[in-house]
Each structure stands twice: as C-alpha cells, then as structure tokens.
C-alpha cells in the first residue's frame, strides 16, 4: 500500500483499445456483439482487426513484423505520448512497466503449426531457419517494451510481467512504487490481451469442470501516472492503495489462512485511508463471483468491462480502470469519491485497487 511517507501518485490519462472502440466512453455506448470465431464457429469472442501504427512514432517496418498483440499495445500506448511529452520530464525519470500475457508462451509453437498448415511441404527447420531475426525477437516481451520505450522516450525503471489478469496489477503497482519512492516522476503502464487463437481455447483444459468458458476479447489498455496532477484537469485521480493475494484455484491446495482471502485483501486496501465500505462511492468487480459477494457482504458492485468487450486478460485491469473513471458521475467531483476495483483471475490472483477521485487542486 502507499505509505504516508511516500510521494502521491496520480493517474493522468488512460487509453484503451477494444471491440467497443478506442475511448473509455465508448464502453458506455452501444455494446458490441460477440462474433462467432472463424476457427471455432460454435464459440464467440470480440476479436479486433490489427491496428495501424502511427508512422510518426514507429518505424514502418514494425507494422508488418510485429505480431498482433504487440501492435495493439503499441497503438494504444502511443496515444499517451503527447501527454507524456507535455510533462517535460527527462526520459530517465519516466518508468515503463508492462503486462504482456500468456500468448507469449505457446505462440511460437502455434505459429509453427500455422506455418505447417500454410506450407506443409516446407520442413519446420527450414521455416525456422528463414524466420527473420526481427520476427524472432518480438517473441520476447521485452522487445515490445523496447519499441515503446524508444518511441515514447522512456529510460527510467522498467519491469515486464507475464500472466493473466494479475499481471496488470503487478505492472500498475510497480509503476506506482517507482513514483511513490522517488525513482521516477512519471510512468507509462501498458498492457495487452492475448490474441484470440485456437491456442487460447486449448488452455481451457486447465479450467475446472463445469466452469463456463470465458468469452475472450482482444484489446489493449495503458495509463500514464505522475507525481502530481496536471493543472488543467477538472479532477485529480489519486492511487490511494492496493492489496493483493493469491488463492489457489485447486481446492485441495487452498488452506485455512485463505479461507476468506477476499476479506483480507479488502480490509488491507480499505485500511490505507482508514475507510469502511460505506465510504466508497462505487465498487467494480464481477458480480457473479460468490467469493467476492461474501467478502463485501453484498455491497452493490458494478460489472467491469468484461460483459461489454469480453475477457481481456492482462489488459482487463487497466481497461476497467479507464471504464470506472469514465463514469459520468465522477467527471467533475465536488468532493472526494473513493472507487474500488476488485478482481480475481481464474488462475488465483486477487487484486484490489483503491482510487480517490478528488476535485481538481494542486498536489501538496
């Protein structure tokens, strides 16, 4: 949690890209419809067409050499460039953290399968031998981050996380700590969903029997954090605190201390500013999560972005963050509103993020 002895951390701007469009407000508009997937007509999802990178920021070669999830990430995060540049900070004071998800793991294998399908006569070894180096390199998460770091001049602290929903919180908190503890004055936090490929569905064998498969979405989300709010803002969004936990999804391995893990996570995050549930203006989470409902004693929760644009994996938290902050009632607050985001990944990560949306004023 953010300690009183550290510097405040403000959210300056968000950017999203998903089936609803490329603004958080679009998530409140006409909901997109999940489509049958080309490779599995009985399944639905929210796939996106590959965005075109702005050529004033990125080398043209990247458009054809970088795979889809990284293109979404770069395209989305680049929109924060003008705001970042307006801060006038030296690049060494700008941190970059990323949540780049599981597609990194089996995608090389899947690409090999795709290559076999397209050119079955070509030996696999030949195919790999002729793989351009640039293509090989984008298989590392840090490569996508490097393209972004170069385009947006980030040369401060850096960290990349790989995983599902939990990775988004890891990236956001690492960036917040870097600002709060003085290693950076601003931070770019970026995240992307996995590509919707057959590989994504093959992993569902990990889900418990009877679990309803998620409707996946493709997207990306990013935000810019700073040590002080901009003068022109009508509101200040401060990251007040966080808490996280892990609950093994295998019941036999969940132990007694984890009996009510959400309650522990919830108590920790509220204690950051000595709050109770009644002090909160709104809570965003999965209203169908029984564990969560029990922890918050049926306090009304608003659903996150998942029903609108599908499960976005590592980019879900930042998408939900943008979604929450785009709610019209918090656009120009007259008093402090505390907003809480709670999530639980199906692999077991629990996360709680507490924000204060305050009337605009200069940071102390």
């Amino acid at each position, binding site marked *: 949690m953010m*300690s009183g002895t550290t510097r405040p951390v403000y959210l300056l701007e968000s950017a999203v890209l998903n089936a609803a469009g490329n603004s958080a407000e679009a998530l409140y508009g006409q909901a997109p419809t999940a489509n049958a997937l080309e490779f599995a007509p009985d399944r639905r999802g929210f796939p996106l067409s590959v965005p075109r990178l702005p050529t004033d920021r990125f080398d043209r070669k990247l458009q054809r050499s970088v795979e889809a999830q990284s293109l979404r990430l770069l395209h989305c995060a680049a929109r924060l460039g003008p705001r970042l540049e307006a801060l006038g900070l030296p*690049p*060494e004071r700008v941190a970059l953290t990323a949540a780049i998800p*599981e597609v*990194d*793991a*089996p995608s*090389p*294998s899947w690409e*090999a*399968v795709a290559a*076999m*399908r397209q050119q079955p*006569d070509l030996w696999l*070894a030949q195919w*790999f*031998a002729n*793989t351009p*180096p640039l293509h*090989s*390199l984008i*298989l*590392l*998460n*840090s*490569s*996508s*981050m*490097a393209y972004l*770091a170069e385009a947006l*001049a980030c040369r*401060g*602290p850096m*960290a*990349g*996380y*790989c*995983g*599902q929903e*939990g*990775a988004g919180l*890891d990236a956001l908190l*690492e960036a917040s700590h870097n600002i709060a*503890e003085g*290693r950076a004055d601003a931070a770019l936090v970026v995240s992307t969903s996995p590509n919707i490929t*057959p*590989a994504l569905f*093959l*992993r569902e*064998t990990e889900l418990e029997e009877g679990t309803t498969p998620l409707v996946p979405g493709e997207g990306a989300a990013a935000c810019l954090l700073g040590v002080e709010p901009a003068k022109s803002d009508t509101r200040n969004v401060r990251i007040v605190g966080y808490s996280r*936990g*892990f*609950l*093994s*999804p295998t019941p036999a*391995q969940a132990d007694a*201390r*984890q009996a009510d893990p959400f309650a522990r996570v919830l108590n920790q995050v509220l204690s950051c500013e000595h709050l109770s549930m009644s002090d909160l203006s709104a809570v965003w989470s999965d209203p169908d999560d029984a564990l969560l409902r029990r922890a918050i004693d049926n306090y009304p929760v608003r659903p996150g972005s998942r029903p609108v644009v599908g499960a976005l994996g590592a980019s879900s938290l930042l998408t939900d963050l943008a979604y929450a902050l785009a709610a019209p009632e918090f656009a120009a607050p007259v008093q402090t509103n505390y907003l809480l985001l709670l999530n639980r990944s199906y*692999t*077991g990560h629990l996360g709680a993020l507490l924000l204060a949306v305050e009337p605009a004023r200069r940071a102390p």
Partner: protein
Amino acid sequence: MHHEVLVTGYGLVAPGAMDASTLFRRIAQQGSGLRANPRFQRLGFINTAAGYIDEEQWARIHVATAKLPDITPPQVRLAEFVMLSALVSAGLTVDDFRHMKSGLFLGSNKFCANNRDFAVLCACLDFDGLFDLDRFLTEQAPTSHPFARRVDQQTHHLAALLGVADHVSTHADACAAGTVAIGTAFRSIQRGDIDIALCGAVELMASELPYYMFNSLGALCQAAEWPAAQQSRPFMRDRCGFVLSEGAALLVLESRQHAERRRASALGRVLGFAALCEAEKMTSSSRDGSKYQACMNAALADARCCPADIDHINTHGTSTQSNDSCEGKAVLSLFGPHLDRISLTANKSAIGHSLASSGAIEVVLSLLSLSEGVLLPTLNYRPEGAEFPELRFLSEAECAPIGTVLSNSFGFGGINSALVLGGA
C-alpha cells in the same frame, strides 16, 4: 521504515550440477558445464554446444518429485526440485510459507515446445497437408499438449504448493528476469509488504526453438569448430557469441526481524537493486556503455554505497561482442580509480547463458564468493587476449575476503538490471 533484507536459503540446478556448492567448486576448479548437446547433434545443428540438464540430472529430479503426475511439464518439476532445495537450505518446510506474509517472484520468459512436441504435431498432418487439430487433441492427455502450458505454469504450481497468499508474480524481463524477480522481492520485503519471499528464475530454453531464434540473430557462438567448453569466452577479443544454456535458481529472502524471530542463519544480504530501460537498440546497448553504467550507478545509489565500496563484480558477460564491449566500458568508466582492487568474474564462461535463470544463478554464486572468500575464475580468459586488460578477471580461483558484490544482468530489448549483495 526500510527493513533489512537477508538471504537465508538458496537452491539451484545448472548444467551438470544439482546444487550450488557443487557448481561453485566445479567453476573454482575451472570445470565447464558446456558440452555437445546430443539432441542438437541428432538434429544436425552446425553448432551443438550447450549447457543442458542431462538425463542423469532429470532422473534425480524425477525421483525427488515422484508425487507429481507423469505429464507434469519439466519446468514445473525443476521448479519444485529447486524450491525444495532452497527451503531445506533456509531451514523451512513446504508448510511454513502458508503461515507467513509471503511472496513468490519467479522469472521465466516463455514456454517453448521442443522437437518431441513438434514431432507429435507433424504426425497429425493429414493427407492434404493440413493439421488435424481434433486428432492431435484426441491423442494427447488434456494438460500435456504444449498449448495447454504457459510461461507462468511453474509460478502457479509453487504458489499453490507453498500456500503463498500475498504476492505471486511472473517476471518476463528477458535475460534480466531472474535478477528483476529477486530485486522486486527485495523491495517488497524492504517496504514491509511481505516478510519472506521465494524468488529467482526457472528457464529451460536450451532447445530447438530458442536455438533458431538466437542463431538467426547471430547471437550464438559462431565458432562451431571450437570445443564446447571453450566457446563461451566473455571479454576476450576473439569472443563470437554466447552458448545457450538452462537451469534454475531460487533464493529465500526475508526481513532481518523475521529471520531472527525464527533463528534462521543469514547467508548474505541484498543491499540494493535497479532495473532501467535504455531504449537504445534491440540487441545492443549504448556503444560507450553509458546506459549500463547508469544502471549500475542506480543500484549502488539504492544500496547507499559508492563505487569504492564494491569489492567484486559478477558481470553479465555473455561473450557477445556487443554486450561485453558495452559492459567493459561501463565498468571502466564507473569504477576506474578503484579497478586495481576490484575483481571481476563472468560465470557464463562456465555455464553458458540460461537467460532468465542466469541472473539468479549468478547471485547464488556471488553469495558463495562472499561467504567462502573465494573468487571464481572466468574460464577461457587469458589476459593477453582480453579486450579490457585493465579489468581484473581471474584465470584461476583466488582466495580473498570480500564484503560487497555487484551482480549485473542486461536483457534483450534494453532492460538493464543490477543487484548489490553483501556478506552475512
């Protein structure tokens, strides 16, 4: 309040070594873990040199993890084996973590299907040359096919096994992932978020796909005619690429108060950490070494020490022209006036480059140098052929008490990291 962070346990598996002291002794005696990889030989690779965990080692790992189902991915078995070693070293049991404010920080870059996996895939091509996914899935156990696996599978396995309830993260920072995982754990304890952490990295990438990836970049040693043990020669003028390797190392870190409460012995301390983004080039750093220098300097500042306080440097030292040139210049520039008393080592000369795991393994070897007072040689190093003769790399092990070590890891894509370690 900042908590002091102690290392109270560690475990590792490296090519030809099942534990840290075996590896340390072997390197001290100038023994290499790099050999011709039989799998690479069978596949007809031009350069077959690699550091790999051999069948005898895997047999021991299987015995120690016999309770796991047969289909368990090797990364998970390896992670569990090393975790058990680290816990024993720290005087802990598997059940202890669940009663503590704990975290798990694991570096790993990707799960790569190997030749065996591809052979199965190829067997499922139909007469039209199309891949028959239904047949493939029918013939595979549900969780054994490569697409069911993830890069964070071992993280979740350990988290569930240990009952870690507070912080679980997977770090994908290329060759810096192990160091960043340790550094992040260090900061979490220092900050007071958790009391104890298991951290490090597990990486099995000495296989076909990474070979193609790195070879296509020209990053692997180009002198296939050299014996495997002589191919990794960091900081030598005739170096021409790294040798792919694999392994795992995990450390137990905890706050001094927590360690003292349970009367654990300290094996060393983590004093400082930095991870910086350089946004320079994908596979090379600033030619003058300034970006690496900035990272090392930031780690020193985090540890509240200065160049004069460092006794020994465990370099990233990959044996590529680009890395070693930049790192050498950075060390010269930052430590110039103190270089006559600073020794350096490049462990990858003996064990190759295990990517995410390399930083974690090197931290363990550095801690052993601190506790044993033995400085490790850099294999294949001859002062007369060195690019930076001013840097005191050792050709033979040397006994010398040291108090502070800087351990570097610089990753593809420009993620630079460094840890400052102290004796117990």
